[in-house]
């Protein structure tokens, strides 16, 4: 039993943190949000480093590493609140890698891995997916409905851009029918997407917590740092509790994805539920700790808060996840006839 990363994994984390600190400071996140366009140069750099294909097999142009490595990168991308198609593209990669045929993989994965033909995942009901990240620019959309998935080429889908509260990311409503069916492990693919999404939210929560703790040390009122007041400091400890809890669940899901798939479905549901709650609660709490400043466009916290809200709304909601967890747990304890 060992939760620790390998040396290589620690190295990936360090490299990602360093690079993103330079390439995606909040000024760049803001620029991307206000211009409505991703930073092409930064995206090019990430893809040249092979990040986009980290969990894609080498045969298909990726690095052949696992969900754990992807989760490490996504946690850092969330921490930076990076504006890029990384999340949607890698989720689509996971779906095709785990549920696609050799042919489908050979056709789509190389473009996903080097970022030249990006893809995304749409969760649909009655032919319509109401919230799809990065669909407009995608070459192909993994269209999931009622537990089945098809590959729909961009030209065959109706994509209607949406303006959401999170301008650091492009969203659309996507309608489609038909497409090229994915016949493999769709459920496992979605579960991996949930782990990946959870990781981004853990990073968001971590950043919001760190900003709050720093602010609580610096900001003085009544002649003392506000962090000396328990109403503030206990709020910060609650942030830590939720962030660390979500991190535990997310690492477990990533590990299960790579090493113990029977534990993946429940593990991923738990990761998504815990990370959605943590990201939303911690970013909201962070605004409160910052007072009036936290409510300003200037203070940058709102990017994290908005990202948390949109991320939590992707894939399965935490309300549904809780019920899934309950039913799976009930099935595990109920004696079968």
């Amino acid at each position: 039993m060992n939760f620790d990363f390998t040396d290589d994994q620690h190295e990936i984390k360090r490299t990602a943190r360093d690079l993103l600190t330079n390439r995606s400071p909040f000024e760049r996140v803001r620029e991307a949000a206000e211009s409505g366009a991703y930073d092409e140069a930064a995206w090019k750099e990430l893809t040249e480093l092979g990040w986009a294909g980290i969990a894609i097999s080498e045969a298909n142009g990726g690095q052949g590493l696992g969900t754990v490595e992807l989760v490490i990168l996504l946690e850092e991308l969330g921490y930076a609140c990076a504006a890029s198609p990384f999340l949607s593209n890698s989720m689509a990669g996971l779906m095709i890698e785990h549920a696609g045929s050799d042919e489908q993989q050979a056709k789509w994965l190389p473009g996903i891995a080097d970022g030249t033909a990006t893809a995304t995942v749409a969760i649909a009901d009655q032919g319509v997916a109401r919230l799809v990240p990065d669909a407009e620019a995608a070459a192909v959309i993994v269209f999931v409905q009622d537990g089945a998935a098809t590959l729909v080429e961009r030209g065959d889908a109706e994509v209607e851009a949406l303006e959401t509260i999170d301008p650091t990311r492009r969203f659309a409503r996507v309608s489609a029918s038909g497409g090229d069916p994915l016949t493999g492990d769709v459920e496992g693919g979605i579960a991996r997407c949930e782990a990946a999404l959870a990781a981004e939210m853990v990073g968001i929560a971590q950043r919001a917590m760190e900003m709050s703790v720093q602010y609580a040390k610096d900001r003085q009122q009544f002649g003392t740092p506000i962090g000396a007041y328990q109403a503030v400091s206990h709020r910060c400890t609650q942030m830590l509790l939720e962030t660390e809890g979500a991190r535990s669940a997310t690492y477990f899901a990533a590990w299960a994805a790579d090493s113990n798939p029977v534990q993946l479905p429940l593990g991923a549901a738990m990761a998504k539920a815990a990370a959605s709650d943590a990201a939303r609660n911690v970013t909201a709490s962070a605004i409160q700790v910052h007072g009036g400043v936290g409510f300003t466009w200037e203070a940058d916290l709102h990017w994290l808060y908005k990202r948390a809200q949109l991320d939590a709304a992707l894939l399965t909601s935490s309300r549904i996840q809780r019920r899934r967890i309950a039913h799976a747990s009930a099935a595990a304890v109920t004696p079968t006839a």
Partner: protein
Amino acid sequence: MDLTFSTSELAFRDEFRAWLEANPAGQSPEGEDAAYAFRTQWQRRLYEGGWAAVHWPRQFGGRDATLVEAAIFYEELARVRAPIPANVLGILLGGPTLMLWGTEEQKDRYLIPILSAEEIWCQGFSEPDAGSDLAALKTKAVKDGDDWIVTGQKVWTSGAQYSKWCMLVARTDQDAAKHKGLTYFLLDMEQEEVQVRPLRQITGESEFNELFIEGARIPDENVIGGVGNGWKVALTTLMNERAGLAFGLQVALKIGLDKLTEQASARGLMDDPAVADKLGELHLKCEILRLTAYRGLSTTMKYGQPGPEGSLTKWMWSETNQQLAQAAVDILGPEALLSDSPWAYGLLRSRGNTIEGGTTEVLKNIVAERVLGLPRMR
């Protein structure tokens, strides 16, 4: 990352499972004293099998177990619903404190009788005016030849009625600063000058007591860690208190939650979204607690000290345990409130969980200052 047990960890688990199967704990009798005697017997059997304290060094009757093996050990005990060993405070608090601060003579004298349950230990820290603010304690020890004469009052002393030794923190220097004038003693409870009076808890039981100490004698050789060093020694005890039982408690929580889930399911309540939400939430918290506790062990094993996650498990566990009992009342209705229901007992006993071993508020203060580096509280 490898979140399965290693071959040697599995071998350890299987060995203990086999032992538990061959040596079932049996059913605890009714009545507090009888139940306590039963726990004493149980600990003796663990001791004879070499299973009383796996994380202790071999020379003192342990097995030199790793942190993960110790976790497995407590998980397995909880899984078969074995009673908590009678001398739990000696095993988890007293022994480790002595191993760090005791002299060789003290270790030779006290450690084995702790494990064999021959001598039960209790913890005499809290006082009427010194709870969270432990260093404000007033119990006084004055040197008299080779002895110390102790006068004062302790409160909430769990298991004092069964104890031979009390881990006692007393003030030995009235003039020194609050944290500096304290000394850690081993007080012999078998003397007239120590009176134990039971305190009735909201459960109706009396696990804890008041101690009235009027001129009790402690020989100088029973000072642990040196005169005036009591605060540091006491912190060792408190650190162990916060780490100790976590794994067993976590499994007990999961067993309770599974039972509630099974009952809800049998009554067809899983289709009620409110019930499913609540149970889902509790299963989530329970699993996060387990994972976070193991993550904490990995950090401790790698870096020699716990990371931020290590300080969170007692807080997570105590609140979840309370929420479980409350959920049972909501889901099962009035029958969970009948005196003989285990849920009713849980509803009452779990209120103590966020107080004993440091209140949740105090834990948050510690996390804020030591983990997050926030300024000292006002």
